[in-house]
């Protein structure tokens, strides 16, 4: 796959169809993959990579590096393409200046799972035919791929690309998944247990803003948390409104727009399951207003800027949330 992608990227660069390519590149470690901008065939030959570690969602990177006067090729995994569709719907990226190639994703590996298994001093990781070989300073170990696949991929919502100019490899389908199971588990707890759970999780937050920076739905020109006039700033002070409410506000801000790509949880250095906040909103929206998948189609009307006269009343929450 990777070679096909490289070849096609170079072809498009050479033909002048595009002048820039957005893809992934490998850093010091096999598993340390970051989004990257390539502007020449040489750069592509040298750095371009597409493998089971290419987790980062390129749509946010594309937004940050967009240029209007020239065309950019972007490779999109299915979940990236949902985010991209949402960005197009919100007029945040210029569709005209993009050439989108959809590529399949067979599940990305979560290095944290390997580390959590006690592996240290990792020198290299290779993923081959459903096995993942880990080579460390202290010896080697092989995992079955599903053991180290990230949670978001195990609960993949779709292997289909809602938008593309060109597809490479097999196009998948919208998937059946159990992604709301964790949410349901929390919902089944008592309010006290839930409060304790979230206090435990959110107390670990160091306000590094990684979640916000990675989130493809967080593309505000100026984030309200950075805006002294929003009434929720005051970053420095401790115990302020913004500090405490950051994640709730962020989740509400992306409610109805979050495509559930899982970047927030992936990048969180404190391993806070932030996606469980977003999924709560997604689950509620599906339940109350009919199934809605953000980024499924360009021009969709988000559930929070929409209504029907027969919508459920807010007291549905007090009645246990059953529609």
């Amino acid at each position, binding site marked *: 796959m990777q070679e096909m992608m490289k070849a096609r990227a170079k072809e498009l660069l050479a033909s002048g169809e595009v002048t820039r390519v957005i893809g992934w590149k490998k850093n010091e470690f096999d598993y340390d993959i970051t989004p990257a901008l390539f502007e020449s065939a040489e750069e592509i030959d040298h750095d371009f990579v597409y493998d089971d570690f290419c987790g980062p969602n390129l749509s946010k990177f594309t937004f940050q590096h967009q240029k209007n006067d020239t065309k950019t090729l972007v490779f999109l995994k299915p979940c990236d393409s949902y985010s991209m569709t949402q960005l197009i719907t919100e007029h945040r990226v210029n569709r005209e200046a993009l050439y989108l190639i959809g590529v399949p994703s067979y599940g990305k590996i979560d290095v944290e799972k390997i580390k959590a298994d006690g592996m240290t001093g990792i020198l290299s990781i290779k993923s081959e035919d459903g096995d993942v070989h880990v080579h460390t300073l202290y010896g080697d170990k092989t995992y079955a791929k599903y053991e180290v696949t990230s949670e978001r991929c195990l609960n993949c919502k779709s292997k289909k690309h809602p938008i593309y100019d060109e597809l490479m490899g097999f196009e998948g389908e919208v998937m059946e998944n159990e992604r709301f199971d964790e949410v349901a588990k929390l919902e089944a707890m008592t*309010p006290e247990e839930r409060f304790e759970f979230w206090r435990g999780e959110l107390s670990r937050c160091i306000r590094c803003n990684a979640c916000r920076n990675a989130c493809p739905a967080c593309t505000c020109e100026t984030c309200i948390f950075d805006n002294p006039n929003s009434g929720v700033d005051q970053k420095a002070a401790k115990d302020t409104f913004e500090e405490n409410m950051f994640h709730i506000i962020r*989740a*509400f801000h992306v409610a109805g727009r979050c495509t559930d790509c899982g970047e927030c949880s992936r990048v969180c250095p404190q391993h806070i399951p932030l996606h469980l906040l977003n999924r*709560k909103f997604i689950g509620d929206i599906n339940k109350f207003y009919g199934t809605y998948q953000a980024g499924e189609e360009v021009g969709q009307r988000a559930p929070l800027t929409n*209504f029907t006269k027969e919508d459920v009343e807010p007291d549905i929450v007090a009645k246990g949330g059953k529609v």
Partner: protein
Amino acid sequence: MSMNEFKPKIVAFCCNWCSYAGADLAGTNRLNYPADVKIIRVPCSCRVNPLFILRAFQRGADGVILCGCHPGDCHYTTGNYYARRRMTLLFSMLDYLGIEKERTRVEWVSAAEGAKFATVMNDFVKTVTELGENKRLEDLRCKK
């Protein structure tokens, strides 16, 4: 603090056209409800940003209630429909975070429903008083 001494802090957002007028009518008719309820006038229920409600909880409110025109009767035609969706989702999230769902409420009160306004407020204050002091949302960030 024993139960009967507990005085909850309750913030009530009322839309200017229906519910605020309903509250005025309750006053004109001398219908009593607890002084714990403090009203903030907004043009429409759709003006109420979830941030305001979160802020109230963070600042120590024990209950927040939003009152607007009945669905279909909004002065601005559709405002309360949007408010209804926003609040449904917000309340569900607050409940998910462990803030008891009884601490948040939306009621549709028309300008003619002074009696309903008083009844709703009495009931809401009673419910919140029974729940007792709210967990401060700011605790969410404090180490256990």
